[in-house]
């Protein structure tokens, strides 16, 4: 029996042998390869199948297929949504706890170490006056702490002056 015609398409008896289950493994592979790209032979084959009784799968396909589609959806769509939700929650937690400001503040302080010291600051007369108030830098101490620092420094210097005077006297 010839499975293929000279033009490369499946013969009528080849298709019938496939339907009757008379082809060996190589013959079935060759037929499958041909049917996977030849429209004309696929039309002939489905027409032959339509005329006879179709086989039914041992188990209904709708239920396992529904499960497979559900798993596919879970792993792809819902999985991505879950990952995005966790990421958003984490970002919100970091923001609300103030850790974000701490991280950014440390980053700004670290940048300061790279400023070269050789560059002289411009003379005060050259700097145009503006109303702009420099915001406190992340590493800078607040005003209350500065005042306390000045008071302690003044007290210490006066104490040193007294001690020096007593020693001299």
């Amino acid at each position, binding site marked *: 029996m*010839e*499975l*293929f*015609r*000279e033009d*490369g398409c499946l013969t009528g008896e080849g298709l019938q042998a*496939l*339907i009757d*289950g008379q082809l060996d*493994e*190589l013959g*079935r*592979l*060759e*037929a*499958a*390869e*041909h*049917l*996977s*790209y030849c*429209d004309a032979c*696929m*039309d002939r*084959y*489905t027409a032959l*199948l*339509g005329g006879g009784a*179709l*086989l*039914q*799968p*041992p*188990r*209904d*396909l*709708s239920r*396992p*297929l529904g499960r*497979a*589609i559900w798993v*596919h959806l879970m792993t792809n769509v819902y999985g991505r949504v879950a990952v995005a939700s966790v990421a958003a929650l984490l970002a919100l937690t970091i923001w609300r706890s103030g850790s974000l400001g701490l991280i950014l503040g440390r980053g700004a302080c670290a940048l300061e170490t790279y400023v070269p010291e050789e560059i002289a600051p411009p003379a005060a007369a050259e700097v145009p006056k503006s109303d702009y108030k420099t915001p406190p830098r992340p590493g800078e101490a607040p005003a209350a702490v500065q005042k306390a620092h000045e008071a302690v420094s003044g007290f210490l210097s006066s104490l040193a002056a007294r001690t020096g005077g007593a020693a001299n006297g």
Partner: protein
Amino acid sequence: MVRTYQGLVYTVCYQLVQDQDTAQDLAQETFLAAWRAAGRCPPGCEKQWLARIAANKAKDHLRSGWARKMSTPGDEVLALAGAPPDQGPEAQALASLGEEALRQKILALREPYRTPCRLCLLEGYAPAEAARLCRRPEKTFNAQLWRAKKMLRAEIEQEREQERRTGDGTV
């Protein structure tokens, strides 16, 4: 769609693989692939489209089984004596033949193997171009060419073996 066409899809799979469980699995894979590519189904051609996907699934299954069966370890040891080195055993077997003998063997092959071999081994076309010329997918064309070379090699080896036995018998 599943209830309407599950009989058709299962029948195509079963007729191609001849195994109930495998056909059931392939039919399920077919519908899953169809669900993923639902937008690509030509309107009114659902039957042919599903049967095409089923044939493709069965083809992949059969091809992997065939490749496992045919790829025997130590093939390189079986290369024919006197053939050019640095080639695969099939190429060595073919190169050991004369041009006319090779032509006769290729033209005696059956379809779907004769055309790929004629175009690539006799007329010197590159596989991609030859696949386009005979309107076959390149992957399918290459698989057919690979199997054809295996067939030719087996035939040549069988002839050599017969010649050797005949020679031994006369001596």
